[in-house]
């Protein structure tokens, strides 16, 4: 990984985007699934395995992402690689919004 100093501008921009998206998604998950108690939620926490999300939770998360970031998520994109941690979600939304 290159440091922020020698990253090219578009990389830097997407890093900023990812952080902003991550924060917004984190707030949403803490408020809606963790009843405000988000101390243990790390960027890499596996949301299904730790019981934070279940099937319904995933559908609600998808609906939130579509409205908050103005993207359309296809059925084929609802996979763990895109949605199963804050890191994955942020990277996925950055890719979608490009």
């Amino acid at each position, binding site marked *: 990984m290159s440091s922020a100093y020698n990253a090219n501008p578009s990389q830097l921009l997407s890093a900023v985007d990812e952080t902003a998206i991550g924060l917004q998604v984190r707030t949403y998950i803490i408020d809606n699934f963790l*009843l405000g108690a988000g101390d243990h939620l790390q960027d890499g926490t596996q949301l*299904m395995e*730790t019981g934070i999300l279940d099937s*319904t939770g*995933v559908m609600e998360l998808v609906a939130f992402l579509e409205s908050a970031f103005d993207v359309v998520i296809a059925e*084929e994109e*609802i*996979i*763990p690689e895109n949605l199963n941690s804050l890191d994955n979600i942020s990277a996925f939304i950055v890719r979608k919004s490009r």
Partner: protein
Amino acid sequence: MLVHHYLRDSARQSLGKPAIIIANQAHSFQEIDEASDRLASGLQGLGVRRGDRVATMLDNSIEMVIALWATLKAGAVFVPVSPGTKADKLGFLLADSEAAALIASTDFGQRVEDATTRVSFDGVTIWVGDKIEATGASLSEILARPRRPPADPGLIDQDLCLIIYTSGSTGSPKGVMMTHRNIYNNVWSISTYLRNQPDDVILSVLPLSFDYGLFQVLTGARIGFTVVLERSFAYPYDVLNRIAQYRVTGLPGVPTIFAKLLQFAPFEGLELSSLRYLSNTAAPFPAAHILALRKLIPQVTIFSMYGLTECTRVSFLDPSRLEAKLTSVGRAMPNSETYILDDQGRRCGPREIGELVVRGTSVMRGYWRRPNETTSTLRDGDIPGEKILFTGDLFWKDEEGDLYFVGRRDDVFKCRGEKVSPREVEACLYELEAVAEVAVVGMPDSTDGMAIKAYVVPREGHVISEPMLRQQCLRRLEPLLVPRFFELCTSLPKTESGKIMTAALRSSLRAAE
């Protein structure tokens, strides 16, 4: 005639064949037979005796499968608890069943510890995953011991095999007692009409804490077929791709699962040519979905079925009559008989609505330590001493004897194939001081079958909000029971005696549909 003999026999006959595939890992019948011997000996070493209850709080996993077989081999009764269960209810189930052991994932450590502390649970906890407490044992330690066959507990087929808790109209869950003889009969009957073969590969996303899910594993062991287990259906695209990956032949589901599958229509990205059958139970299969699936996957046989935990399964529609009788659930499965009784206890003729009654070896022993509920559900049949099961479900039959579901006698309804007791959800909302009155009803929904809706009246001088109600439910109820819709209102329709008329609320929802 003991259920765990299936595993022993398949381990001998099917040399190295995968019994379970989960997370791309295959586990043979032999491997599971050996691991469950170790755990069965471990359970006996921890004091578990014939007839004791062993509860589990586990997601679909190889550990859950091992726990099932080990419990039976040790002579104990398997009590699977849904992993979404909150601490209060888990505590109730542990106390009610007087479990001697609980096998639980450390992922649910907090809830398990809250529950065991609250009810002063004096059984042993066996942790799956990293051991987090000084108390309890560790599954991985037990499984690392040398293999030693468990002591023969001396079971006969009248001994209890499973206790599965189910919601009732009163809101307090009741344990359905099934003997080895019940389960042995039901696995035989179901796999006979489904024509299961050793070369079947079944994809199961159903929770193993639900009898429909558990039966996939039990049947797999009887027939010697492979079950591809999934933890959940949260990522349907991944799950559906397993059909091509493992050449899956059977997909058991509930309407919610098939509704999800149909969102991928016309299935261009999915390879489904290996599928031989789909089976539906737990909630009515919408006719439109049956027709769409028949058209899109023409080689597939669709089994429309009906059952209840109290006898596992009641009926199935012969697939050759499906086209003509889209909304029927057919006739009694092998070695069962059904009839419909009116309020006076007379047998109904064709097209008369009454309560469905089941007789046969499939019928449960009763509700665990609930003599009153048992007497009202299991009543005397025509043969002295025989008990027949009153299902609480209203049905009619056509001139050829095929059955059609009408509804429940009580307020219980099914959301995503699972029973919802409105009383349980209402009790949770009544805990809020600001809530004066609540009525919970099922609202027809194309995906959930019935979605949960709560009407709430605030107490005078108090303010309530939807997020506040939702948070209370999330805290106290398993995710399935959290209402999807809340409606705040100033009053609820009542009878002259002041009883809330939920029937009026339900019919207003149907009218709005």
